[in-house]
């Protein structure tokens, strides 16, 4: 998906850089990268440093950076393709998966508008109506109240302890991050995947209810509202 966009955008002088927010590192992200055969830089971010610095709270999230190294569009949901999951007709016999799809299909995803906006910025640069001034960029970047900053510190402790071989000790810090910044899906989904991924599987996209965190992806989407999972682009 990102390689196809890179192929389109490279001739007019744009580079795509992907960052895998994966505490599991290359072991977790590597198979997906290999399958995509990317020609662009494909970075591994075990500590979620990029998320803290740029304000990523879910995936896919992106920022646009101009030739002078200035952000012209702060962190936002970045959909360049509509997931096939949105096209599936949900039927009663689908059970739990059907319930997940029902919520997923309520997400704000508008790939056509996003691609149009990006192409406009690529062609017109600072004159694009989608490119923001420096003051607008700061104002449009995600709010960072004290509790969100504390959540970032708690998450950093959690992921460090997990990587250092203390996964049980990491849980309390992950929970604290979740409580302090409930809208941050990277904190939740990263932590949940450590306890819900079946043995031998590369990842778990269902992230069902579990004893460790006492909640699930489906429960949390319903609690916060599926319309908040991705804010509309340009909002």
């Amino acid at each position, binding site marked *: 998906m990102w390689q196809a966009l890179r192929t389109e955008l490279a001739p007019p002088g744009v580079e795509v850089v992907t960052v895998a927010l994966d505490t599991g590192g290359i072991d977790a992200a590597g198979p997906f990268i*290999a399958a995509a055969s990317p020609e662009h830089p494909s*970075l591994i971010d075990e500590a979620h*440093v990029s998320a803290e610095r740029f304000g990523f709270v879910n*995936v896919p999230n992106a920022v646009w950076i101009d*030739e002078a190294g200035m952000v012209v569009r702060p962190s936002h949901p970045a959909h360049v393709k509509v997931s096939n999951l949105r096209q599936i007709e949900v039927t009663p016999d689908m059970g739990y998966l059907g319930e997940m799809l029902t919520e997923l299909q309520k997400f704000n995803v508008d790939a056509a508008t996003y691609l149009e906006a990006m192409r406009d910025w690529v062609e017109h640069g600072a004159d694009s109506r989608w490119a923001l001034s420096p003051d607008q960029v700061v104002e449009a970047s995600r709010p960072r109240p004290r509790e969100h900053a504390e959540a970032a510190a708690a998450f950093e402790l959690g992921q460090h302890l997990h990587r250092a071989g203390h996964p049980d000790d990491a849980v309390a810090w992950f929970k604290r991050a979740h409580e302090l910044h409930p809208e941050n899906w990277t904190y939740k989904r990263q932590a*949940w995947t450590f306890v819900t991924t079946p043995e031998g599987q590369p990842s778990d996209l269902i992230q069902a209810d579990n004893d460790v965190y006492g909640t699930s992806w489906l429960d949390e989407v319903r609690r916060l509202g599926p319309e908040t999972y991705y804010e509309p682009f340009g909002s």
Partner: protein
Amino acid sequence: MLLTSTTTDPAAFAAATGWAVKPEGACRADMCVPLPDDVHVDGGLDVTVLADRLGMPVLRDDDHGLVALGPATVVGRALETAEAPELELPDADGNPFRLSSLHGKKVLLVAWASW
């Protein structure tokens, strides 16, 4: 930023947070926050003083001897300035890559994950 004490050196603090300690204070792009003299201690900088001035929460994990410093909240936004933060991460082959190496090009920086 993770530490094992409440003292750090200026280079490490700048690399981890983007805030450089200069004579005029802690600075990021064209913004500087004045610092008191007692920020300078034997062995470097007192993290608690920096944290107080920059609105950085400090969490301690005594069992593992760790101190975690959260990001600054002086502006109350994820980006204190539109200047893109530096980012140095390994690529899929393990080679270090700096985002600033792409100056002169437009960049689409995309976060994704396996989970």
